[in-house]
């Protein structure tokens, strides 16, 4: 069964600066700054290709990166965090 579908703000809404290992994001709609660690930036990028549920996202990400087994739960946990921060929303 498919989980909830998530949407990310487009690239223009977010300014990103790399700071050794972490990414500082300025999110214009909220005026808030978030420091995010991998895999959060990768998830946001994958989600910008179009709305998706956790399973689709996992597929998009594993097309590019080597990832461990059984990662759907971890992706969902990351999406929950990103949703709480307002960086992604449910469709």
């Amino acid at each position: 069964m498919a989980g909830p579908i998530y949407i990310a703000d487009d690239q223009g809404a977010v300014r990103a600066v790399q700071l050794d290992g972490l990414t500082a994001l300025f999110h214009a709609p909220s005026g808030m700054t978030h420091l995010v660690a991998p895999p959060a930036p990768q998830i946001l990028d994958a989600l910008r290709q179009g709305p998706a549920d956790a399973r689709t996202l996992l597929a998009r990400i594993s097309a590019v990166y080597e990832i461990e087994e059984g990662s759907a739960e971890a992706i969902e946990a990351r999406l929950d965090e990103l949703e709480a921060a307002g960086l992604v929303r449910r469709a």
Partner: protein
Amino acid sequence: MGDVMSEQSSKEGVLANPTRRTVLALGAAAASTVVTIRPALAQTVGSVMNCEIPVPGPEHSGQYIAADGSLVAPGTPGSFAPPARPITGEEAKTLLRGGLTPNGMDSQSAQAYANYIRRLQSGMSGFTCYASLQLPR
């Protein structure tokens, strides 16, 4: 300044130009990957005010403080009378770290006061002072 910014910005995004087959750890379900910067006053508070926390606040004056920091009717068994004067910012800092008990308080009531302070929420007397004592979240 604009130049440096555009060099640093990940304009292309991470996926557009990835290192093929880089290992990406998705992390444990419980780990956190987002830290949000909050407004801060903590470091400057000593410079901007002489801060104190009334226990309890004037809106609840007369009530006693239970060991868990909640407010109860005066004389409730196991509860403590309020301190004679407000707790200063410095004392609160010491109390919250479980350090020495300020003068004129016994350790059990000090513990109850510390718990009261921990339960303060925005809008209550003393909250700004308490919030300012917090380490960065």
